[in-house]
C-alpha cells in the first residue's frame, strides 16, 4: 500500500464546550484533490487550520507522508496554504513573494530563480515579477498566492476558500485554472469551500461536513446521485422540498389538500419529497410521468437560458426550470411531473 500524502485519524478540536472538529478521519492519497464542503461553522476551515499547524488539536493524529506532524509548529510542516485574502507580503515584489518559501527552505539562489520563473509562468504572470501586490487585481493576487505555495512543492497544498472573495466570472475562470494545474502537476490538496459548484468541478473526492463531522465522503458523482442523507442531498445541488402528509388523501402537512399522485407504495405519514428543479416537467410533458402534482404558477423568473417557474400547491412552494420560451403565466394551473428516480423521500 502506498503512503498517503495526508492522513487524519480521529482529529478533534474543541473550544470550551463547542466541538469544532469532531473525530474527523480523512485520507488524501498522493495526487488527490479532496474538497471539504460545508456551510459556515461546519468545521471545514478548522480542520484545514489543524493540518496547517495554525491551531492545535485536542485529540487524534495527523500524518503527512506517513510521518506524524501534529506536534510540529506550522513552519516545520511541509504544507502550503492559499488563503482567502491571498495574504501576500505587500512590501515584497511578486517574485520575492514567490521566492519567500524557497529562501526559508534554503534552496540555492539559481534554483530559486528558476523556480520563481517556472511557477510565475505556470500561473501566467511572467511579466509581473517586479510588481508589488497592490498593483495587481484580485485574481492576479490569488494566482501569485498559488505560485508562492506551489513553488515550495509541499507534500500537501491547503486551499482555504481561495476564490470566495472574487467575483463570479473570475471565480469560474480561476476554478478552471486550478483544475488544469492539478491535472498537470498532480499535487495533493485539500480544498475548503462552501461553494458546491467548486467542489463538484475540481475534486477527486468531496467530503461534506456538518457540525464538525464528515457526513459523506465520495466522488462528486456519487455525492450528487447517491447522497446518504437529507443534509447532503439538500446541500448539493438545488432542490425543491415538498413537506407532505401521505395517505389516501395527501395534504401539504398543514391540512391543505393537494392533488398529488406518486408511483409505487409510500407508507402514509409525514414525508419530505425532494426533487431537482431541473428534472421537473410540466404541462403536456408531465401528462405521462408517473409522479404528478397540480400547482399554480405564482411568478416566472427569466434566467437567460431558461425560465424558472415558481409554483404553489396549497402550502407547498416549489420551482421548476424550463428551457425555451415562457409557456405559462402567473395564475395558470399546471400539472408538474417527474420520474421516480429524480425524487428522494426522507421522513
Amino acid at each position: 500500500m502506498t503512503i498517503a500524502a495526508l492522513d487524519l485519524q480521529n482529529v478533534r478540536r474543541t473550544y470550551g464546550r463547542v466541538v469544532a472538529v469532531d473525530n474527523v478521519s480523512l485520507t488524501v492519497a498522493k495526487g488527490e484533490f479532496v474538497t471539504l464542503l460545508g456551510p459556515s461553522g461546519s468545521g471545514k476551515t478548522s480542520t484545514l487550520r489543524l493540518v496547517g499547524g495554525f491551531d492545535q488539536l485536542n485529540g487524534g493524529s495527523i500524518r503527512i507522508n506517513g510521518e506524524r506532524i501534529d506536534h510540529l509548529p506550522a513552519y516545520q510542516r511541509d504544507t502550503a496554504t492559499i488563503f482567502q485574502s491571498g495574504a501576500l507580503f505587500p512590501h515584497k515584489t511578486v517574485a520575492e513573494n514567490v521566492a519567500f518559501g524557497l529562501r526559508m527552505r534554503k534552496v540555492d539562489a539559481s534554483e530559486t530563480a528558476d523556480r520563481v520563473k517556472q511557477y510565475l509562468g505556470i500561473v501566467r504572470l511572467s511579466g509581473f515579477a517586479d510588481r508589488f501586490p497592490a498593483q495587481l487585481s484580485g485574481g492576479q493576487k490569488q494566482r501569485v498566492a498559488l505560485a508562492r505555495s506551489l513553488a515550495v512543492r509541499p507534500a500537501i497544498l491547503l486551499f482555504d476558500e481561495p476564490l470566495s472573495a472574487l467575483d463570479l466570472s473570475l471565480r469560474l475562470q480561476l476554478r478552471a485554472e486550478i483544475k488544469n494545474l492539478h491535472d498537470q502537476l498532480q499535487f495533493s490538496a485539500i480544498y475548503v469551500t462552501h461553494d458546491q459548484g467548486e467542489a463538484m468541478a475540481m475534486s477527486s473526492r468531496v467530503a461534506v461536513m456538518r457540525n464538525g463531522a464528515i457526513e459523506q465522503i465520495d466522488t462528486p458523482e456519487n455525492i450528487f446521485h447517491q447522497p446518504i442523507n437529507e443534509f447532503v442531498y439538500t446541500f448539493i445541488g438545488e432542490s425543491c422540498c415538498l413537506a407532505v402528509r401521505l395517505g389516501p388523501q395527501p395534504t401539504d402537512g398543514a391540512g391543505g389538500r393537494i392533488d398529488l399522485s406518486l408511483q409505487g407504495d409510500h407508507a402514509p405519514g409525514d414525508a419530505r419529497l425532494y426533487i431537482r428543479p431541473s428534472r421537473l416537467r410540466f404541462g403536456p410533458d408531465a401528462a405521462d410521468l408517473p409522479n404528478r402534482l397540480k400547482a399554480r404558477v405564482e411568478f416566472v423568473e427569466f434566467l437567460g437560458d431558461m425560465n424558472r417557474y415558481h409554483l404553489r400547491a396549497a402550502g407547498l412552494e416549489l420551482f421548476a426550470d424550463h428551457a425555451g420560451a415562457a409557456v405559462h403565466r402567473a395564475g395558470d394551473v399546471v400539472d408538474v411531473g417527474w420520474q421516480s428516480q429524480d425524487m428522494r423521500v426522507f421522513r
Partner: protein
Amino acid sequence: MTGEDRAFTVARAAVIRRKRAAPWLLMLPALIIVLIFFGLPTLYMARMSFNLSEGSKLFTPGLSWANYQTVFSNEVFVGAIWTTLQLALMASAATLVIGYLFALLVWLKPAKWRLIFIGLALCPLLISEIAIIFGWWMFFPKNGLLSFALTSSGLISDKISLMYTEFAAFVGLVYLTLPFCFFILLSILDGIDKRMLEAAADLGASPLTIFREVLLPLTRNGMLVAFSQCFIFTMGTYATPSALGPDTLWTMGFLVQEQMLGRNNWPLASALSMVLVVLVAVMMVFTRALATRRATLHV
C-alpha cells in the same frame, strides 16, 4: 459653441472649483487654530530671541545673535542640550521597544482581551502629569512602594531610594509617552492582515524570521512616527524630569523656565526655546527621510 454649451461649461467649472476648495475648507478650522496658537507665538518667540536683555527689564528691543552665542558657548546650556537630547533619545527608544511589545501582544491576543488592555493603556492619559508625579513620589523613595516591594520580596536587604535619580526621570518620561506610542503602533498593526504571519510560517519562516521579514518592514513607518512623537514629547516636557530627576539634571525645558521666570531674561529663554524647536524639527525631517516612501504597502 452654443449658448447652452457655454452655460454648462461655466457651471462645470464652478463645480470643479468647489471640489478643489473642499479640502481647504475642511482644514480651515484646524488651520486657523494652528496659525493663531502655534504659528504666531512661534514667530513672536523667534523675534524675541534676537532682542537684548539689559538691567531688570524683561527685554530690550534689538537685533543681535548674542543670545544664541550665549546658548552655544555657555557650558550650562550646551550641557543641557546634550542632557536633554540623551534623555529624550533613551526614553523614546525604550518607549518604542516597550510600546511595540505591548501593542504586538494586544494585536495578537484574542479580541476579548483587547478592551482591557486598551483601557489600561488609556489610564495614564486620564491623569494629569502632576498627579502622576505624585504617584512616582510614593513609588521611588526609600520608604516608597518600590523599596518596600524589593526588600519584602528578598531581592535586596537594605531599603533603597531611586528618587531624584536620572533613572527616575527616565522612567517617568517613558511612562508619559508609552500610551501615545502604544496607540500609534496598535493602529499600524491593525492594518496588517494576520493571515500574512500564518502564510509566512506556512512557507517555513520561524517566528523570529517572520518578525524580521514581515512585521518589521510593515511597521517601520509606524515605528518612526511613534519614535518621533515620543521624542517631541520628551524633548519639551519639563515637569517630570525636574520633579523626579536630581537637582543637577538640567534639561532645556528647565533652563527655559529658569531664564524666563527666575531671571526674567525672555530673549535668552526664547533663543533656547528656538534651539529646542529646531532640534525637534530636525528629528522630524530625519525620521521622515527614513520612512519608506511607497504608499502601496497595504494590499
